């Protein structure tokens, strides 16, 4: 099966490298961007299966990126997981309204992040198990 491609966007190069290592170990293909403009450009070029997005970014912050992704037809279906140091009390609702799939505040529990990545990635229709009632 083809490997899933994840775009990680963060302006901290050390964290970017750590997330790349962490996600590569889970057998994902990783590309990275460190500002809002190149995040959108990379998303357009590479069509990732999922995006991990920081909010505080130079050249167009996370909200701008989210909005651009949502209004761009082929990109709007890509699930976006927001991973930020910002306060959920002021940002979580806004981020979810802007179309994100999940909101995590840094530092994040790795198992939780990996779990949300797993369930947010597109799956074939037949493999989508109904939730037990």
């Amino acid at each position, binding site marked *: 099966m083809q490997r899933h491609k994840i775009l990680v966007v963060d302006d901290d190069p050390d964290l970017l490298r750590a997330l790349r290592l*962490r996600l590569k170990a889970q057998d994902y293909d990783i590309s990275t961007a460190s500002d809002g403009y190149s995040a959108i450009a990379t998303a357009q070029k590479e069509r990732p299966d999922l995006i991990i997005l920081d909010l505080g970014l130079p050249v167009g912050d996370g909200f701008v990126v989210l909005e651009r992704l949502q209004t761009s037809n082929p990109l709007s279906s890509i699930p976006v997981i927001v991973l930020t*140091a910002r306060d959920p*009390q002021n940002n979580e609702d806004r981020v*979810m*309204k802007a179309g994100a799939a999940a909101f995590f505040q840094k*530092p*994040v529990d790795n198992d*939780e992040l990996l779990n949300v990545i797993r369930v947010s990635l597109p799956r074939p229709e037949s493999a*989508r198990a109904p939730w037990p009632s």
Partner: protein
Amino acid sequence: MDPQNTQVLLIEDNPGDADLVRLRLIEAKNTSEVNCVSRLSDGLASLANSQPSVVLLDLNLPDCHGAETFRKVLDKAPNTPIVILSGQDDEALATKALHQGVQDYLVKGDFTSKHLERAMRYAVERQALVRSLEISRKQQLEFKNRFLSHVSHELRTPLTCIHQYVTILLDGIAGPVAPEQNDHLKTVLKSVNQLHAMIRDLLEATRAESGKMRVEPRCIAVDGLIHQAVAMMRPTAQEKNVALEMGLDQRIPLVHADPDRVLEILINLMDNALKFTPPEGSVVVKASMVETDPGMIYVSVSDTGRGINTEAKALIFERLFQDPDTIDSNRTGLGLGLYISKELVNLQGGKIWVSSEPGQGSTFTFTLPLYSLASLLMPVVTYQGQMRPSFVLARVDLIPLRNPPRGNWKETWQECLEVVRRCVYLDKDLVLPPMAAQGPGEAFYIVASTDLQQAGIMTTRIREQLERVEDLSSKATVAISLVPVEFEPGKADISLEAKVQVLASRISEMIVDDMQVRPVREPARK
């Protein structure tokens, strides 16, 4: 004070005394504009329209006497300086008024024009000073809160980096790690987690202080949360060789509280209890009803630690309090945990306290308000002083197609709840406030005062209306179930209230049973 533009509101019912004030002002060549009223109500009305430079206030007016007079003026115009005109016999009261925000007082018949002018001038100056102090205090508090929130945000970024690299090493992603190195890395991770908890507490305490802490109460089963908290703390207890036990009453009624916050309080109290309990000791979490306080559930966390002395007990819920007797190695927090817990309990309408004897262990108890189903049911299950004949409990499940749900799930289910509310008869059906989410989805319960057949018509209507909710079919599936409520109303001579109470208890039991068979929610985010 610019004497040329001074406006004086004189509230004085004795024309002689009023004239005397005017005379003294003329003597002082003061050109203040004096607006004289003889009743407090007229004075308050004038204050509502315009703010004078100073109020001269007699304490015995036709419509108000004594302390009440200046309190009312202070309430109406807290920023306007007040000088009291007191009689010889109420000078003591005038002195008392100074402690409550009045600027000065003059004894009638005993002041010269100079006294009057100086009292007015100083009252205005002092009031301005008090005001600017107040503003600067508020600014400082605001600045401190902004600073703390900024700092905690900035600290998170490097902390995340440390956390990531330590876990990368620990998980062997960067190659094999020797057992000793592994131990060291675990110590680093432990400290990182402590630091993380402190940053969180700092921000939470800042919120509590500035009144920005939020709780979202729902109808919840507290025993489920206790099970969850115990499961989360079990590893810590095992590591410390402390027994962790539960003592739950058979039937614990539902409470009206925020599930995430209750879990936070439980974890905090249990974490403290485990911290201060020596190996071989035990920590017990209990939930029970207390006869003398029927509106509340009592939740307690007891330990067999060394107890808390009287002085520490008095201060333990204060911000930044740390027991000086605590061994340093046990101090792993900022001393904000109990303060935050107290604020959270208060916000949810409960109380928290500690009982402890040195050497005998401690018990922290908090209360949460019961969810009073009976009072919600009363208007819909009765008609003209009689119970309606039959009742059905319906459950509408919204099950998201993905877990966790995509998009703004909260907005989606809230919209659905509104739709459900519009589909029932307000006079005989009740959509209960949302329950704590047990699975990934949401469940709404409806009590319908009707038979199964009519309830079936209601649920068909609900289903049709939910199908019209935009995009719902791409986000969630809807499942609706119906169960008749079978209950024994008891003897014919019991009051209607008692009958409704019996029905409410029966419905609560059905919901609690129903919630227990549904999947348990995933652990909350760390």
